[in-house]
């Protein structure tokens, strides 16, 4: 019979009992022939037993009140009242802003092209990214439904950019209202919880095609561009130069539709 050679990884997997039964038997036979190695492997298994026994009592200790999950959930669900209050305040501000806007309209034209797109993305980011309750309307697990929805509303096929190579996972997305019609917003986060937003919509009028243009305001940075009448803006809590490679990835994928 031809046996595959036994590897160090096999020996460790043997200790952890994760080998296929057949392989487990082969390793056992090998250890039978090599008492020195068998002794070493037995010592590893002993470590586990010892550590488990030494640490087991910790798991039996009664939980202190700070670790009472019902209480933590209770504190969390009471918090949205604050969020609601903040949203009401924001609504009032925006109504005030709209009043001011009407006046401003007479004085200067509202922004267009990429400038408008970047502003819309930055506003969406500042409203939705800090949201702890419902940052996205359709979650990543329903991304097919999300794509269908935003493609219908934008009247063109929209593809959700995949940013996993940059370390960001899709959380989901929503449709957002802009002065230039509906836009699709996708939100991403990384392992440290930092979030990015990609906003895309058809460009009306100017900037049907535009190169990548960095913008930043405070500690929120963004990059916007347009390809064949569709505008994209990537916004996050980061400098535009950090966002650049991610923007390149988004553009590459969008062009591959």
């Amino acid at each position: 019979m031809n046996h595959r050679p036994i590897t160090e990884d096999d020996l460790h997997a043997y200790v952890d009992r994760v080998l296929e039964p057949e392989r487990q038997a082969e390793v056992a036979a090998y250890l039978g022939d090599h008492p020195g190695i068998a002794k070493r492997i037995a010592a590893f298994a002993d470590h586990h037993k010892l550590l488990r026994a030494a640490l087991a009592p910790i798991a039996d200790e009664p939980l202190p009140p700070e670790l009472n999950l019902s209480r933590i959930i209770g504190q969390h669900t009471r918090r949205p009242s604050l969020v609601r209050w903040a949203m009401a305040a924001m609504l009032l501000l925006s109504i005030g802003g709209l009043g001011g806007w009407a006046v401003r309209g007479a004085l200067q034209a509202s922004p267009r092209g990429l400038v408008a797109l970047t502003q819309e993305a930055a506003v969406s980011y500042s409203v939705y990214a800090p949201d702890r309750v419902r940052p996205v309307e359709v979650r990543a697990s329903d991304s097919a439904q999300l794509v269908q929805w935003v493609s219908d509303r934008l009247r063109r096929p929209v593809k959700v950019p995949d940013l996993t190579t940059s370390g960001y996972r899709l959380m989901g997305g929503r449709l957002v209202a802009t002065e230039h019609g509906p836009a699709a917003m996708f939100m991403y986060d990384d392992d440290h919880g930092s979030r990015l937003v990609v906003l895309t919509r058809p460009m009306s009028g100017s900037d049907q095609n535009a190169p990548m243009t960095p913008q930043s305001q405070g500690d929120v940075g963004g990059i916007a561009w347009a390809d064949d009448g569709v505008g994209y803006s990537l916004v996050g809590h980061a400098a535009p130069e950090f966002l650049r490679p991610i923007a390149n990835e988004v553009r590459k994928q969008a062009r591959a539709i």
Partner: protein
Amino acid sequence: MKDMLLQVEPLIPALRRYARALVRNRANADDLVQDCLERAVSRWQQRRDGDVRAWLFAILHNLAVDQFRKTTARSRHVTIDKTSEGDFGEAAAQEHQLMYQDVLNKLMRLPEEQRAVLLLVGVEDLSYADAAKVLNVPIGTVMSRLSRARERLQQEIEAVTAAPGNVVPMRSVK
């Protein structure tokens, strides 16, 4: 939130055990678990499909690593000798207490990343794939760290056995 309670609550004892074995100090460890649970509650809706246990351990592990970094930055090392006996002490059963204290002391001598993998795989029974997710490294790295961790722990155990104080003087054979 009801499904969260059902899925997460039974895992809290294991999270405490992992945190305590990682940072040793009881109060620090429970603070980490509390932080972890708060984050889990606020991120529950955004959780991707997959094992809840691996997801929770990943949150906890990241918090612990952040804390290690901060402690190192402030260069305030909590050495093994300074931690209070009570952190593990009353946990261990009386008759085995010394032996258990001893192996935990040795575990603390391992680098943090080796300790983590040994605990996740050996004590918490996570699969290699789940441990890789928690540690945010490829499976191959989990395997090599596990191998180093086991060799290192064995060395620590043998080192004490061979330490001068423990050497039994050899008798001359007649």
